[in-house]
């Protein structure tokens, strides 16, 4: 996928002959986005590109939860290239952020062999994001898994219930405030000496005094 520069079309960044670059107050050059992300930003101005390092090079855009269904419909049926496969839906929890629950979608275009990643965040007591099951049935189980693990509700999901954990389980295991379960382990230094117990929730590699 070629990354076409927006700077080529905008006159503000082009050097003017006869003038030193210092003499002219030059605005910061507009950021250069990958082609498909640029198309998305042109069509849906409410989207933005997060200020974050994406080490895998997949073009990424963040979208508002209200728009997500409209955007993926556009990407699937109208956009050129058409992103016709939903590869993955991943959830994450960033407790320090304003919208702590982040859902990431990776879409794939079979014809152009291109990928794009969409990010959607929700917060509040009951985080909710519209479901993509109406666009791709493939989203059914991954969304159930995110509901199970993070407690994010997917509005419009036909069968939203726990999938991996038991139905009477309390809490959502992959949230950062959910403790990693472990049993207290007793370490004996010598048969007659005092035993040292590591409490549950302690460090994985505790220092033995």
């Amino acid at each position: 996928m070629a990354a076409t520069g927006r700077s080529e079309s905008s006159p503000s960044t082009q050097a003017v002959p006869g003038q030193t670059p210092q003499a002219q107050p030059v605005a910061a050059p507009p950021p250069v986005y990958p082609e498909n992300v640029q198309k998305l930003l042109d069509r849906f101005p409410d989207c933005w590109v997060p200020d974050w390092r994406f080490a895998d090079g997949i073009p990424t855009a963040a979208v508002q939860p209200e728009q997500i269904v409209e955007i993926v419909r556009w990407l699937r049926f109208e956009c050129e290239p058409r992103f016709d496969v939903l590869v993955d839906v991943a959830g994450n929890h960033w407790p320090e952020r304003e919208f702590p629950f982040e859902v990431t979608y990776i879409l794939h275009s079979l014809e152009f062999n291109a990928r794009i990643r969409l990010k959607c965040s929700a917060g509040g007591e009951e985080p909710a994001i519209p479901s993509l099951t109406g666009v791709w049935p493939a989203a059914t189980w991954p969304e159930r898994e995110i509901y199970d693990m993070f407690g994010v509700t997917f509005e419009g999901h036909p069968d939203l219930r726990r999938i991996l954990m038991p139905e009477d389980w309390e809490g959502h295991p992959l949230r950062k405030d959910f403790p990693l379960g472990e049993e207290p382990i007793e370490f004996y230094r010598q048969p007659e000496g005092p035993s040292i117990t590591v409490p549950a929730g302690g460090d994985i590699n505790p220092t033995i005094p």
Partner: protein
Amino acid sequence: MVMLSETRTDQDHMILNMGPQHPSTHGVLRLLLELDGETIVSCAPEIGYLHTGIEKTIEARNYHQAIVLTDRTDYLCPPINNLCYVLACEKLFGIEKDVPERAQVIRVIMSELTRIASHLIWLGTHALDLGATTPFMYCWREREQILAINEFYTGVRMMTSFTRIGGVLADVPDGFEQRVADFVRIMPRRIDEYEALLTKNPIFVDRTRGIGKISREDALQYGFSGPCLRGSGVQFDVRVKFPYCGYEGYEFDVPYSNDGDVYARYLVRIREMRESLRIIDQGLKKLPATKGQWIRVDNPRICFPPREKIHTSMESLIHHFKLVSEGPVPQSGEAYACVESPRGELGTYVFSDGSNKPQRCRIHAPSFVNLQTLPRLVEGRLVADVVACIGSIDIILGEIDR
């Protein structure tokens, strides 16, 4: 409660629990079947019996320690799981271009050997489910040879964990090439044997042809990947479309079929084994040229230094100590890496917040996505066809439940 169809109050319909302890559900899969006579009205898979919280556990380990956990997801192809996690980490550390060629070739050879081993288990159990007991014994015989190669190289038969961030743990021992070459030499004839038993066997063909049909469009909509997708006529293979570990330098075909039924998926996997042998053969030819090359990235902040250097160089000792006690620390960011596992596109999505432990590690399991289509494949068919369909999508519960 599980939602079955609206007609379940009908007294004529019977609810049948298939699994979780049932040999043909390949693990601890539980299927709730609503039956009208012997015809399936609706089917609801129940999973989670093998949930061990691997993703949560990885968040409490450093980047090196998490490698051994990834083996335990899909326990039939541990090297491929390791590889996927390690590729995501390499992207996060920014060293994916620096991995030495010898390490890449070793990774490819071991991945393809494991792919054959995994397909052999699939073939043996799938044929056994459909009533053919002999292929099961034959497949185990050849799988044993692959496990012996694993043991010869890594010391363990299944959970190999030899992949490291930036390369592999150790160079292959002397005699490795010969062992693999022997295997590659005998294996095509063995695959001919399986095909002689099954491919034109009228019972096997009756049980599989036209069963569990899914069209190209539906397969894409439902997120199929791997041999299931290729059985429906989509020529998508991660090794070709997003090459990793130098797969672009190997010559192989991507087998596919347009039929979309159980038999098509059988043919695709059988042909895949032959293609894997071709790749191993080419890998073996690349090994001698890289002999003597160091097998990890030469970056002491990320990869362990050579063992001999730890004894002679103070700096290496310090790096080794830092890597063992703290582990490598990437910049904050995220990376998704995908590989072609025997079951489809396996993805690992690692998030980093700049500490020495992954902030989150998502494992995108191909069987998880493939299994959700099972009700569509079996509804309206007979109970016996469920067994054929489960076998044909080749599920591994360890990876589904994680």
